[in-house]
């Protein structure tokens, strides 16, 4: 018997380590013959901590939301008396969250122990690299990737085979393969999950890519904010080296490949290829003009190919199962599956891997269960700071590179932030502009100063000081920033503003002309009032931090609007629903 506790960063954040420790303590105390093991994140983040118990016949029972204090009952019922403990077991409805998905990249996440290479090998791991090195030429590998139709999963969606081929055909003293694991999009965590849950699939993918393009060294550029990912990668690399999958003369083929990790230092712009290379060289991460493309002149001026984590994690599956099997999923132009990070105002947040071409409705309502607290769905933000907001009326848009582009957003790396009626779209645009303004490297004037000016206008609007002409000014600046910036960061920075103006112009107009925040979220534009439901319990006046609420005991209270700082504490406190937000 085996107890497996999901311990990705998200699981650990909900106390999975304490849960695992509690299992160990009780198993030792009761002297049971049960092993406690670790796995990565299965993707149902809203159910963490998750515990899988494997019986001797291989049957698995999943328990969810297993806080340490719930462990004893499970141990007693399942481990001692061999009865499923229904109270904590996953419901049939929640099982659908994973059952409705089609998992390629996440195939092993939450299944195997990421710190044990044997478990990866058991599920067919390192079979693809064996096949490649013993029976395929570099051209055949690239052809297989071409057949699969795999496109870059980091955001741009560029055909992967084309990049490999370019790097292969460029001559250099050395060639480098770089994995971009600097997942900087706020609201995206697909790569973290793969790095933490299945690091060997990335390593295997990199060895295959290295072989195809003739690179001798692979570098993983990983975010410093992901300490657990770095730790698990290091363990995995050491194990792969020991087994002979990394190093000299792999599988006796004469092919040598080494890998190392370089921890990023926190700069969103380093997601751009040339900035990432500058950062690898120890410089400020500032992009440069292309061409020459990294495939010709990259790291230390040598041919360099850069792929995203998810792209590379697809590779072993494609080689093992054939490019055609991968290409059979998805649509004509957007093949295969894609992982999305579902978060925001969603009932069931987590990682979702589905074939491309499903609609947004399928993902948000079909798998994600719809909106938290059954509020009204307003928009979904895709593509992070480079993307845009897709409004509720476009919910039947298929999720493919082409269809999402048409809306003004992008698929990007796969972040899907769901918003409900309480989210102010002007504030959302302000949030993203604040992010890009902060992360602009400062090289191009339009990006450096333009984003700052746009942010100032948006801040003014959310403060209720918007004026006639602001929307047009924002649109004009947006086009200039797009034209006047060298790299993707500046070229796409205005997208969140442009898409919100396109679909939610009425909200901008409400802020500017009616001094009203449609979503009742911008503090400067809301007020709290006490209605006649008030029974005079005086609780709110006691809680008010600025003493703005007055009234006699058992008499209706009132709020002094001059003093009120709109913190909303009275609204939270009132038990009689007597406080209104207007």
């Amino acid at each position, binding site marked *: 018997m085996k107890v497996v506790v999901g311990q990705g960063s998200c699981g650990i954040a909900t106390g999975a380590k304490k849960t695992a420790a509690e299992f160990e303590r009780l198993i030792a105390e009761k002297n049971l013959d049960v092993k406690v093991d670790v796995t990565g994140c299965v993707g149902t*983040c809203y159910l963490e901590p998750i515990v899988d118990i494997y019986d001797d016949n291989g049957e698995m029972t999943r328990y969810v939301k297993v806080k340490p204090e719930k462990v004893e009952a499970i141990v007693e019922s399942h481990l001692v008396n061999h009865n499923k403990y229904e109270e904590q077991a996953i419901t049939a409805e929640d099982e659908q969250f994973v059952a409705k998905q089609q998992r390629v990249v996440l195939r092993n996440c939450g299944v195997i122990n990421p710190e044990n290479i044997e478990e990866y090998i058991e599920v067919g791991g390192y079979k693809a690299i064996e096949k490649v090195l013993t029976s395929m030429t570099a051209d055949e590998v690239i052809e297989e990737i071409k057949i699969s139709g795999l496109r870059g999963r980091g955001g741009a969606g560029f055909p992967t085979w084309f990049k490999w081929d370019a790097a292969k055909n460029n001559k250099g003293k050395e060639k480098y393969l770089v994995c971009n694991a600097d997942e900087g999009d706020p609201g995206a965590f697909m790569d973290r999950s793969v790095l933490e849950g299945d690091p060997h699939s990335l390593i295997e993918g990199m060895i295959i890519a290295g072989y195809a393009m003739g690179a001798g060294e692979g570098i993983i550029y990983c975010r410093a904010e992901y300490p657990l990912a770095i730790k698990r990668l290091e363990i995995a690399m050491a194990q792969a080296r020991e087994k002979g999958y990394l190093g000299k003369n792999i599988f006796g083929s004469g092919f040598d490949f080494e890998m190392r990790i370089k921890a990023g230092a926190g700069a969103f712009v380093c997601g751009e290829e040339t900035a990432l290379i500058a950062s690898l060289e120890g410089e*400020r991460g500032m992009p440069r003009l292309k061409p020459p493309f990294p495939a010709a002149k990259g790291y230390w001026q040598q041919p360099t190919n850069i792929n995203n984590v998810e792209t590379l994690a697809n590779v072993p599956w494609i080689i093992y199962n054939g490019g055609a099997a991968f290409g059979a999923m998805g649509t004509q132009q957007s093949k295969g599956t894609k992982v999305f990070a579902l*978060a925001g105002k969603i009932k069931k947040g987590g990682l979702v891997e589905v074939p491309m071409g499903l609609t947004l409705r399928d993902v948000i309502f079909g798998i994600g269960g719809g909106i938290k607290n059954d509020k009204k769905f307003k928009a979904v933000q895709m593509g992070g700071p480079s993307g845009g907001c897709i409004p509720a009326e476009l919910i039947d848009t298929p999720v493919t590179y082409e269809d999402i582009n048409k809306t003004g957003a992008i698929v990007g790396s796969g*972040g899907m932030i769901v918003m409900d009626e309480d989210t102010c779209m002007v504030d959302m645009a302000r949030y993203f502009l604040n992010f890009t303004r902060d992360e602009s490297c400062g090289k191009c004037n339009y990006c450096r100063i333009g984003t700052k000016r746009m942010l100032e206008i948006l801040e003014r609007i959310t403060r209720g000081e918007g004026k006639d002409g602001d929307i047009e000014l924002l649109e004009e600046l947006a086009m200039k920033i797009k034209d006047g910036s060298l790299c993707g960061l500046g070229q796409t920075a205005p997208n969140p503003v442009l898409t919100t103006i396109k679909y939610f112009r009425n909200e901008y107009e409400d802020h500017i002309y009616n001094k009203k925040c449609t979503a009742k979220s911008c503090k400067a534009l809301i007020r709290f009032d006490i209605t006649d439901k008030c029974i005079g319990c005086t609780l709110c006046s006691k809680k008010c931090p600025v003493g703005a609420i007055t009234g006699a005991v058992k008499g209706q209270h009132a709020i002094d609007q001059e003093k009120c700082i709109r913190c909303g504490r009275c609204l939270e406190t009132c038990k009689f629903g007597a406080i209104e937000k207007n």
Partner: protein
Amino acid sequence: MKNNLCNCNCTSDRKEQFKDLQPVLDQYAHVPGSLITILQKAQDIYGYLSVDCINHISEVTGIKPAKIYGVATFYAQFRLQPVGKHLIMLCQGTACHVNGSEIIEEAISDFLNIKDGETTEDGLFTLNNVACLGCCSLAPVMMIRSSEGDETYGNLTKDSVKQILADIQKREKGV
């Protein structure tokens, strides 16, 4: 205590002052492209990058202090000021923003009387807003880093965040 806060070339003092960094410098000083790695390890050891530390790295590697300063200020990870014993990294990712990270920031600021980037007078806490921590389904989220390691807290509310901080305060003052 030796007076080693000057900016002159008294390298012997600095070598003594930064002896813990020496193994790192031995390994990386002459490997091209290693500046960020050196700065990361220096910050791991000393908690921040002091002017003295930057000058010392400059002397050993031959990279100009201005350039080191340029790199250190470019990346969000590097700090030029010491931080408190517990570094609160409050996630400001999109999911956290949508789920009210601003309210959490207010609650922390209220409770500890510090703003983003500041350290409490007793040196126990520093508050830093950070870009996404990647635990979006548990938004709003914060990570607290101390000598005991990193601890992540999810599904924060005004009250839970105060409770977490109060518990740390109690633990620290009890010891």
